[in-house]
């Protein structure tokens, strides 16, 4: 009997050691519309593929720092106009074709081309020429010095793709990363498997499944039942305390690059009047929105800049909650009776819940809003492209995106030549101290112009199995880099 027990114990111990898991099921909220990160603005594509399937010349780390990617080292000419990249050797794409300088030229030429649909095309138009020096060396020539170039090249929009596989990239993405695309079950999941021929350090996981769960209730249920191992960007902040109290789970409250704003249509009356925009900024109680919509998760912002960035300037003082002042400003602007406008809300709860709270706060100063709830596709069509809105709430999750205020055709249509000149100057400046000063000035200009109502920095909560480690706590860019993720027991 004793013998049998020890045997059983030994067997159990043996299986436990063997059962070291190497596969992961990670849930995210949104399903990508297709799988080409270089031709769409949808962040969900990068959430699945960035650093896993596709790699760029440089890449983001979990802290937002820029590190070498496919380019192992580089030299910058004295005048800042010529960048010479030395590429990693022995790299192959998942379809077996080799990676070399020609692929880099192809990818960057494609991103800049006349008919390019790259969502961040503007970031790369300053590159006037891409020259292949030899198979492992490539040279970029710029029209003006660009202090952001290495940062821009780390974006998911600048990953390296191959001419051989570009045809089917939207369905079968072929990259150079540590994971290969395996299967896409539309509406359900995408599966990646380890790339045995990866040129860099092999990941711990052999298989990763991205599951798409957008409904907060379903997200809670899936996580509680452990149908998924982790949920990156958990959609229901109200449920986090329950996970925190459960030893099976770890809750990581990271930050994202998401400046959540009450965007105002700067070209549409009455928001073309800066006094009206200022009034709105004072009518909004940020803390109530953070508490009510996000259950306390989020950092108030006073301008369009991430608070964790060292160059952030706290300008919340310019738009303190002061309904009396808001009413006075409205009177001065000629809207003593208030006015009615539209408030169009995309699906996330920060927008839907935040929208109801903002509507109530605006009503308090005499502004009536007609709320319309939109799905993402409708929102992109009506608001983002059609610019048919008065107010909307959205989180801008791209990193370092204050440059959108220099684009008069961007959906909130802010047109300030002074700001545009400053951005041009910033892009041409490489001296860190000078750049810091300019960034502070840029933040102040858009805060003083009350372009939008700056609400809060979107938190990025991740709920994970307590035995998992290596998940990115923060979202310096939309990504779920799985290269360091592993099970600890």
């Amino acid at each position: 009997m004793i013998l049998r027990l020890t045997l059983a114990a030994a067997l159990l111990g043996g299986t436990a050691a063997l059962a070291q898991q190497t596969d992961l099921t990670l849930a995210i909220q949104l399903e990508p519309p297709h799988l080409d990160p270089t031709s769409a603005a949808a962040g969900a594509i990068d959430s699945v593929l960035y650093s896993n399937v596709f790699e760029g010349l440089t890449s983001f780390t979990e802290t937002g720092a820029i590190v070498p990617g496919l380019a192992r080292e580089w030299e910058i000419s004295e005048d800042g106009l010529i960048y010479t990249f030395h590429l990693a050797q022995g790299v192959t794409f998942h379809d077996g074709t080799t990676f070399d300088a020609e692929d880099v030229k192809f990818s960057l030429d494609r991103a800049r081309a006349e008919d390019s649909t790259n969502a961040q095309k503007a970031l790369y138009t300053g590159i006037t020429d891409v020259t292949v020096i030899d198979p492992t060396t490539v040279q970029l020539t710029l029209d003006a010095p660009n202090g952001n170039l290495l940062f821009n090249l780390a974006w998911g929009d600048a990953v390296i793709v191959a001419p051989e596989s570009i045809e089917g990239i939207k369905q079968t993405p072929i990259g150079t990363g540590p994971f290969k695309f395996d299967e896409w079950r539309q509406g359900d999941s995408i599966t990646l498997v380890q790339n045995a021929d990866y040129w860099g350090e092999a990941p711990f996981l052999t298989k990763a499944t991205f599951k798409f769960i957008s409904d907060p209730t379903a997200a809670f249920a899936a996580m509680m039942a452990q149908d998924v191992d982790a949920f990156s960007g958990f959609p229901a902040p109200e449920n986090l305390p329950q996970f925190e109290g459960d030893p099976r789970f770890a809750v990581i409250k990271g930050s994202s690059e998401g400046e959540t704003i009450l965007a105002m249509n700067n070209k549409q009356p009455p928001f073309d009047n800066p006094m009206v925009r200022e009034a709105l900024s004072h009518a909004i109680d940020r803390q109530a929105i953070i508490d009510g919509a996000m259950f306390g998760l989020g950092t108030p912002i006073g301008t369009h800049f991430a608070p964790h960035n060292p160059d952030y300037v706290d300008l919340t003082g310019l738009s303190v909650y002061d309904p009396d002042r808001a009413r006075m400003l409205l009177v001065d602007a000629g809207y003593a009776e208030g006015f009615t406008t539209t408030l169009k809300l995309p699906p996330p709860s920060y927008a839907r819940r935040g929208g109801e709270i903002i509507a109530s706060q605006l009503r308090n100063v005499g502004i009536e809003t007609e709320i319309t709830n939109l799905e993402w596709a409708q929102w992109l069509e009506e608001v983002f492209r059609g610019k048919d809105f008065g107010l909307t709430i959205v989180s801008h999750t791209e990193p370092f995106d204050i440059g959108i205020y220099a684009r008069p055709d961007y959906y909130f249509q802010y047109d300030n030549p002074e700001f545009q000149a400053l951005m041009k100057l910033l892009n041409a400046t490489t001296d860190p101290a000078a750049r810091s000063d300019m960034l502070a000035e840029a933040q102040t200009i858009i805060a003083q112009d009350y372009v939008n109502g700056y609400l809060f920095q979107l938190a990025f909560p991740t709920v994970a199995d307590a035995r998992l480690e290596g998940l990115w706590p923060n979202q310096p860019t939309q990504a779920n880099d799985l290269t360091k993720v592993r099970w600890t027991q």
Partner: protein
Amino acid sequence: MSRNLILGGALTALFLGAAALSFLWTPYDVTALDIPARLQPPGGAHLLGTDHFGRDILSMLMVGARTSIAVALVAVGIGITIGVPLGLAAASRAGGWMDELISRSADLIFAFPSLVIAILITAVFGPGALNAILAIGIFNIPVFARLARGAALSLWTREFILAARVAGKNRTRISAEHILPNIANLLIVQCTIQFSLGILAEAGLSYVGLGAQPPIPSWGRMLADAQTLVSLAPHVALIPGLTIVFMVLGLNLLGDGLRDHFDPRLRVLRT
């Protein structure tokens, strides 16, 4: 009076009364948010507790009843005013081309699941209480048309109708003066059933975000909003859920009671 009738009538009256009262008075302002006081349990300052924005649930239910009842009432109204004349017209010329047209059209609308079409209508014309009314109302038309036609057909062979025809009244007058009063009982019972279906449909549309838009309170949206809070504050979901149940139960009991009350055969049994 039967127990069903009394209980159903009382429940219905309670909700109608609450909705009517909400025009004059609610315990709290339904559009006033009070975030620090959110998710309070029932009892205390808020009789039925507060929701995730700190709004008073009782006040929201009272104003929400207004939305539900208004939508269901107008939708039933559309069904009656269009459906009944169509049904009577069809019956007055039974077998004629007009009868065929009306009956087949009614069949056609019946062939589609009503809630799915309601979703389609609100998706095309935009969400909102008005479009919800239209969507639900359209599906009430064939219900009343069929009922009116069926009931009227059996009356057309009766002697008093023959007498009216012999007396020279035309078919339209006969329908209005002799047929309609004799099928009124049936129509009233059907009204209560359609009314409760209307309440459910409105709650369903609001639940998926296609009914009344915020900040107008609606029972269905209260349920949807409470969805992720069930484990945190069950009352936020339970209370509007039970409210819908009791409203529909009340209307169905009322309908049953009225049917029994109007049914002459049962009246004989009772005495």
